[in-house]
């Protein structure tokens, strides 16, 4: 009941943010000097009359606020407009590309969490000892390295030099194995993993590094908490203290960071999809930018903004699930 109420409250709070996202995108997309059609044509010489026709066809001759309302009306019904360049509905284009991006981001997070939490705990437990120093160096290098460069280096090492892993593309587990000429689900799964491994690490390293630092600090704080002292005084084994008493409370900030970092991860996906030739939203975005596909750019920006907002809401709710102190309207 508490969580349900909280969820509703958070969803309600997200509405103005989402409206804001569409507004910003819309304003940005109309910042371009000159009229949109000429902009899309990028300097090509075209007949004035043709421009007028196109403008009328897409309602571009109407005032800005009116166009925004019309556009929003469409978005609310799932109509993100029509890509002029590709002559297809924006929504269809995005739906075809969203899967790989989600796969990439989710697996990068899985990688980051699976490595950062144990390493962070280890570092906290063996504070100022070799394990701690090593993990801190890993974290430092992790936050200091561009993800796309890690990608390039991984390709050079594992694909080019060693030839162990493929250097580009993804295998989509949701497509039947035959599409790829795989003999069965075993090979299909293996290929999925083999293709996913490098981009996942490239995208996940930054998250891993950030989370590891936070995990370490939080565990250190938590281990110094009065309640840990109390547990010790009551003879609770050190292992239980680490795994239960200190751990649970230390995860709260991690959850928040996971949510907020989604923004970096989604941005990073653009770069990683580019480096690894993955046909996801990121690549679609770059293509749209290159072609100055005005409707498609807006659609993608709004969808990615929404993905971020939804991600934050999900993490907030899991936060509320772990921390009983959170009730609606009482954050900060």
């Amino acid at each position, binding site marked *: 009941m508490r969580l349900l109420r909280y969820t509703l409250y958070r969803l309600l709070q997200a509405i*103005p*943010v*989402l409206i*804001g*996202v569409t*507004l*910003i*995108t819309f304003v*940005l*997309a*109309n*910042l*371009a*000097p*000159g009229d949109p059609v000429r*902009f899309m044509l*990028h*300097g090509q010489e075209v007949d004035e009359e043709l421009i007028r026709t196109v403008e009328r066809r897409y309602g571009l001759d109407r005032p800005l606020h009116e166009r925004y309302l019309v556009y929003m009306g469409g978005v609310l019904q799932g109509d993100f407009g029509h890509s002029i360049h590709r002559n297809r509905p924006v929504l269809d284009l995005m739906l075809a590309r969203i899967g790989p991006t989600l796969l990439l981001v989710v697996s990068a997070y899985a990688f980051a969490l699976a490595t950062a939490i144990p390493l962070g705990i280890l570092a906290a437990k063996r504070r*100022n000892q070799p394990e701690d120093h090593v993990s801190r160096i890993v974290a*430092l*290098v992790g*936050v*200091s*390295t*561009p*993800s*796309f*460069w890690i990608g*390039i*280096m991984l*390709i*050079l090492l594992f694909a*080019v030099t060693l030839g162990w892993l493929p250097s580009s593309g993804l295998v989509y587990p949701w497509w039947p194995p035959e599409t790829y000429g795989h003999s069965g689900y075993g090979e299909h799964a293996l290929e999925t993993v083999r293709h996913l491994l490098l981009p996942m690490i490239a995208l996940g390293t930054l998250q891993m590094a950030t989370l590891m630092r936070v995990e370490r*600090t939080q565990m250190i704080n938590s281990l110094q908490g*009065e309640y840990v002292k109390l547990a010790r005084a009551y003879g609770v084994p050190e292992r239980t203290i680490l795994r239960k008493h200190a751990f649970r409370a230390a995860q709260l900030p991690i959850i928040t960071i996971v949510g907020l970092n989604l*923004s*970096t991860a*989604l*941005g*990073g996906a*653009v*770069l990683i999809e*580019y*480096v690894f030739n993955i046909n996801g939203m990121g690549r679609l*975005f*770059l293509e749209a*930018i290159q072609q*100055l596909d005005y409707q498609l*750019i807006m659609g*993608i*920006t709004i969808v*990615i*903004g929404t993905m*971020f*907002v939804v991600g934050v809401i999900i993490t907030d709710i899991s936060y509320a699930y772990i921390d009983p102190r959170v009730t609606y309207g009482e954050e900060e």
Partner: protein
Amino acid sequence: MAVGESQLETDTGSRTEVDYGWRHTVSTVMGDTTARWGFYIVAFVFLVSAYTMVDSNLARLTFGAFEDFTFAEWLPIFDHPERIPPPGEGESNVPPAFHAEGSMANPLGTDPAGRDYFTRIVYGAQVSVSVGVVSTLIGFVGGTIIGAVSGFYGGKVDDALMRAVETVYAIPPLILIIVFTVFVSGGSPDIIYAVFGVGIAFIPVFARIIRSEVLSVREMDYIEAARASGVKNRDIIRRHVIPNSFAPVLVYATLQIGVTILIVAGLSFLGYGAQPPTPDWGQMLSVSHGYMHSNVWLSIWPGVAILLTIMGFNLFGDGLQDALDPRIDD
């Protein structure tokens, strides 16, 4: 803070003691190994970019056009980084010196256009540092204004500003900046748009952190004491709020320079930041991407340069944080 009796029951005053003199802060920072190393790296990068700046501008001032002059004739270290050697003069894709085919003339080899790679890497510092500092400054100034106003006035103003900030924050910076750059530039992106784009995109982050700082400082009793003594609002802000919220924000800005360089590198890599022939590390990686399989070294050195520079800012920022924040005791 709950004032419990700590295990170390020394004088009530000395437990949370921090020395606030500037000289002391400096000596604390430099006393921290992490911070010291960070400082050395940052200082080195700054020196290099300052040198290249003087180098190129002196040349321009003294000898007019760049094309006819290479600084190397004068002080034989750097070739002009942007000058594409006329046919026959420079050989393209020469491997680094430690390769069999390399020579000390081009310690890191040459790029596809035949320019000395070492020179370009060195000149890249200038772009990265100035871009990092300028866009952080934009974010810092914008964020300070919004955050301070929001935190100090509170209420509806705060609510509206924070909603706006949250909204900007909801679009991943890289995407926001690309959209901004492309549309504002009318489809022909350049580093200057990227710098402003990054700066604006990070205003929300700064605004949030400054707001929370201001909010926590505003709650301090000494602010109330100043109000109770009839000190004017602007004097309270000037004498109490700003000096006391400055340190954490400074630390944050230092760390943010690293993030900014990272983002701009990504932008340039995608082709929306620095444009050729500017010697920018991200842009160089973008070029080298096409030669990834044939000329591996082209992809390595710019990345190493980025890594070291950002690491410098991160180390320095971490060290500053440890030195200025008594709560974290590492």
